[in-house]
């Protein structure tokens, strides 16, 4: 059994949160309220050091001025006549303060300014990124021959060798060679038809969309099956903590 105070504290909070499984109770409420407070503070501290200090005060040279950081920043550069883009971080600071003005109802609308910078950069960046990585590269990988000739040829070579040893060619190898590309192309295209909004899902079009839904359902099923595994491992981790680190039953 552990003799560390911290471990006991951790065990207390572990059991407290888990007690929610039985029903909502004061112990859970306590842990929940601690969790909300601690995590909100946790993020505030992390962003203070990593964003406010590192991005703004260091890069502007304010930390250097107070001797808190060895490197010069934008302000020092400007005074020695060199343009430094980081000087624009002052504007970001102003936008940040505008954000805080949201606390005062009368002038709270000014928070829209920084918000629009955030939303604008998201829009610009995501538009390009998703188009490249999701649209283009997926299009690229959908443009494949219907049958994988290379793999089919490979199969006949390996097949001969394997049947000599009395073994069967794996099912997935067959599938990959003859049906793999077909399923990839067909599934992607029918799935896309399901997402077609400006045409009613009727007739042949409707049938295709229906096939698309089935592909989506298989995808969801597969993700679910895969996820069950992940979720179980999380609990195993906690059980190890309780049985091993805290109680010392197992190594």
């Amino acid at each position, binding site marked *: 059994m552990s003799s560390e105070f911290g471990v006991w504290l951790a065990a207390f909070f572990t059991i407290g949160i888990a007690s929610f499984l039985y029903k909502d109770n004061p112990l859970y409420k306590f842990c929940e*309220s601690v969790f909300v407070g601690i995590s909100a503070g*946790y993020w505030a501290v992390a962003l203070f050091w990593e964003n406010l200090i590192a991005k703004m005060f260091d890069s502007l040279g304010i930390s250097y001025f107070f001797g808190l950081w060895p490197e010069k920043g934008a302000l020092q550069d400007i005074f020695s006549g060199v343009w430094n883009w980081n000087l624009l971080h002052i504007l970001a600071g102003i936008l940040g303060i505008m954000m805080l003005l949201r606390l005062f109802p009368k002038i709270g609308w000014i928070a829209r300014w920084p918000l629009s910078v955030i939303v*604008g950069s998201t829009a610009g960046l995501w538009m390009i990124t998703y188009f490249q990585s999701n649209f283009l590269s997926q299009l690229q990988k959908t443009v494949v021959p219907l049958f994988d000739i290379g793999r089919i040829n490979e199969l006949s070579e390996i097949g001969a060798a394997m049947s000599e040893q009395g073994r069967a060619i794996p099912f997935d190898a067959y599938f990959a060679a003859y049906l793999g590309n077909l399923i990839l192309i067909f599934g992607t295209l029918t799935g896309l038809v399901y997402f077609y909004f400006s045409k009613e899902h009727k007739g042949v079009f409707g049938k295709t969309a229906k096939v698309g839904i089935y592909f*989506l359902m298989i995808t969801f099923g597969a993700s679910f099956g895969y996820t*069950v595994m992940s979720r179980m491992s999380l609990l195993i981790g906690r059980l190890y903590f309780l049985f091993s680190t805290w109680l010392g039953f197992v190594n």
Partner: protein
Amino acid sequence: MRREIPLILTAIVGITFFIQFFVPHSPMRELSETFSDWYSIISAFAIWLGGLNLMKISFEKVYKKDKDWFFAVTTIVSFFLILIVGLFFSGGRQYLEQGSGYDWLYRNIYSPLSATMFALLAFFVASASYRAFRARNAQATVLLLAAFIVMAGRTPFGDWITIYLPEGWRLSNLSNVIMNYFNVAGQRAIMIGISLGIVSTSLRIILGIERSHLGGE
């Protein structure tokens, strides 16, 4: 002022990122980097807005002697505890180092709370599979079968129940096929759909047609 400037700001920033992708020439890169940094700095300010809001609500609960006012007190105490420790008593910049007060709070309070909350999922996943995965109709049946095969195929159990089949023709192979072909095809359709949705939504935002984030029409 209230509406036009935000719309113009959105357009300028958005178009900068767009052009930056195709034009490597300065000042595009510098501009886009600057806007990225702005994002970090603005969110560092904004988090205080959230924290203060949380404190405001909690203090109100205590003040009004709400039913759960005691728990509001614990929220307030734990918020200020980690804040004060993290800002003043954890060696400044090295606040994440082993042995700092912040690190101690992280390991012994934050980490078990977070991990246990996450671990509850194991229970919920089990109950969801018992309750929700019913072969109600053809679609649900397909979903269920795929889940079942993948689940079985990812553990030795799957091969064990199909031991009478030749090697290479067992459940794990079927699960591979589902994972690598059917799953990929479905994911791909979803991904392409999403990317189109994002391009179009982004374009509308940049053009100022979609402005709900600034408060509706």
